[in-house]
């Protein structure tokens, strides 16, 4: 187990290193640069060059990369070009905000979708199952920005039931009740998105298992159907469900750029879009690296969970994960 973890961490570091090189290169290869965005148009070319020199932007890309990497390894995420603010100061609040929003939506979707999917698998094509299918199709097909705007139009503007956007009403920062009211609409949009796939996944995964020979064996033993479903089927059906949950884990932090933009939620997804427009390299890099770290950690967690639910997956015994 320890050996497996060490190997995986080393592999992950390599992956992160490669990701950072690729993204750094891509960001710098994009047309236009930070100087064109934040320098006032009246500034002379000479002054612009001095500015760029001070920020290190006149150096070759690889020198810039090494500098950035050096800072990163010392825990320094860098400063913004514009107001020379530390990146960490901008980033951490948005990470928290995103985790609040996405976490609530994700938990909500999971708590509804998995039991619902399991139930639907036991009554295939029943009313409940058909309803779930319908909702999934809607969830998959409807663009989130459109659904978000429609909710705002109806619930906030027409009926004035819930706040239109933002995380808190001005002057009520930190008020839990106010936060809750602001959460309802964006969480509804995001939950539908998660729910659409989770309910289908858990249903299909369960159906596949319920069709297995060993389920017939379990029935032949004369067990109650409930025990067959929960003791025998569910444990086998959990693997694909865990996979999809694990794959979605990074989104919890990376955020949903579109939903956050529609509801003006001060999260990381919205920040990324703003910073991409402003060419704030250090913020973009920080977001990319953080997301990459979470993807890697999420996969690691999923692998460990496999081993817990599936005895055939042995971690570390014969080198890595084998099945």
């Amino acid at each position, binding site marked *: 187990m320890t050996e497996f973890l060490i190997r995986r961490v080393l592999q992950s570091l390599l992956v992160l290193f490669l990701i950072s090189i690729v993204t750094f290169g891509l960001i710098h290869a994009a047309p236009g640069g930070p100087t064109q965005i934040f320098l006032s148009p009246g500034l002379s070319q000479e002054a612009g060059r001095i500015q760029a020199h001070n920020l290190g932007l006149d150096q070759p890309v690889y020198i810039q990369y090494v500098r950035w990497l050096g800072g990163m390894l010392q825990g320094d995420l860098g400063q913004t070009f514009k107001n020379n603010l530390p990146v960490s100061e901008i980033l951490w609040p948005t990470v928290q905000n995103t985790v609040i929003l996405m976490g609530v939506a994700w938990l909500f979707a999971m708590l509804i979708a998995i039991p619902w999917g399991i139930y639907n698998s036991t009554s295939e094509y029943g009313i409940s199952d058909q309803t779930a299918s319908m909702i999934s199709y809607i969830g998959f097909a409807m663009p989130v920005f459109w659904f978000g705007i429609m909710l705002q139009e109806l619930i906030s503007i027409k009926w004035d039931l819930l706040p239109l956007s933002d995380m808190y009403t001005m002057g009520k920062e930190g008020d839990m009740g106010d936060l809750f009211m602001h959460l309802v609409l964006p969480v509804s949009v995001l939950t539908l998105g998660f729910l659409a796939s989770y309910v289908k996944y858990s249903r299909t995964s369960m159906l596949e298992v319920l069709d*297995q*020979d*060993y*389920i*017939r*064996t*379990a*029935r*032949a*033993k*004369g*067990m*109650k159907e409930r*025990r067959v479903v929960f003791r*025998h089927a569910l*444990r*086998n059906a959990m693997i694909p469900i865990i996979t999809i949950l694990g794959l979605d884990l990074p989104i919890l932090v990376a955020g949903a750029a579109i939903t956050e933009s529609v509801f003006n939620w001060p999260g990381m997804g919205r920040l990324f879009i703003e910073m991409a427009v402003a060419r704030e390299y250090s913020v973009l890099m920080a977001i990319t690296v953080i997301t990459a770290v979470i993807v890697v950690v999420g996969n690691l967690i999923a692998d460990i969970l496999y081993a817990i*639910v*599936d*005895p*055939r997956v042995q971690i570390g015994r014969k080198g890595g994960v084998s099945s």
Partner: protein
Amino acid sequence: MTQQPLIDVRNLKKYFPIKTGLFNRVVGHVKAVDDVTFGIHQGETFGLVGESGCGKSTLGRAILQLQKPTSGEVLFDGRSVQQMNAKQLRHLRQDMQIIFQDPFGSLNPRFHIRDIIGEPLRVHQQVSAAEIDKRVVELMELVGLDATRRNRYPHEFSGGQRQRIGIARAIALNPRFIVADEAVSALDVSVQSQVLNLLMKLQKELGLTFLFIAHGLNVVRHISDRIGVMYLGRLVEVGRTEELFANPRHPYTAALLSAIPRPSPHRKQERIVLQGDVPSPANPPAGCRFHPRCIYAQDKCRVLSPELVTLASEHQVACHYPLEALSHSEVI
């Protein structure tokens, strides 16, 4: 034998609907088991043979109510199994068990062997964990498995060992009746005979009644007291094993028997090769279902479906023109 059979199957039918189109319209039925009547006596092994897809497994499962029969009746020890509610049926599972064909798919990969074998005990009997463990050890030793491996998972066992696990599971509650659904056909020939001998040993020791389903006649001959031959969802011939092998009266049985390879190269024997494929059970031929492949088919066979009639003692055939009984000198 005039006593009441332990298992009494009467006019059992199992049809699977064929659905098609937008609204799942039922356009027909696959008649997997079509009007089958037979009985199995206490302590007897009844062999059921037939080609793939002839409905043997479905019949076995329908008897155990693992698949609900479309119509007909199954009596277990005189009690109608159909009329039982879910609870009574679960209770009856203690008395009738099944050994499945596939030793790989039929064991839950997430369960320890001790749980696979011990679960029926936990579900049906009020016994302590220690007693269950003791019984699991007993059962594993009975079927020739190393009981110290009871905390392992199915994938750590070979095919033959897994089949033994399936057998230990099936006999855990001391059932009276066991359906062995192609219990050995997934195994190597060498392991096959081991498992067959194990089943025969268990039958002697525990007084079991078997319905032994197989597609090969030689395996069935080894173990069965009586044999039923199935073709396209129907029983075409039923008889005592020696009698059936010596005197097949149905042309289909005769064809099956002639397909068994003989170990002697000198003995020339006529091989009856059946022409054509098995017709679809969704659209079986009119009259006798075997007539399109039967070399003796007459006009009557194309129109009228033969009933299973008793020709000699305990020998029943569903054929309008049964083969002549051979004189004993010709017996193989």
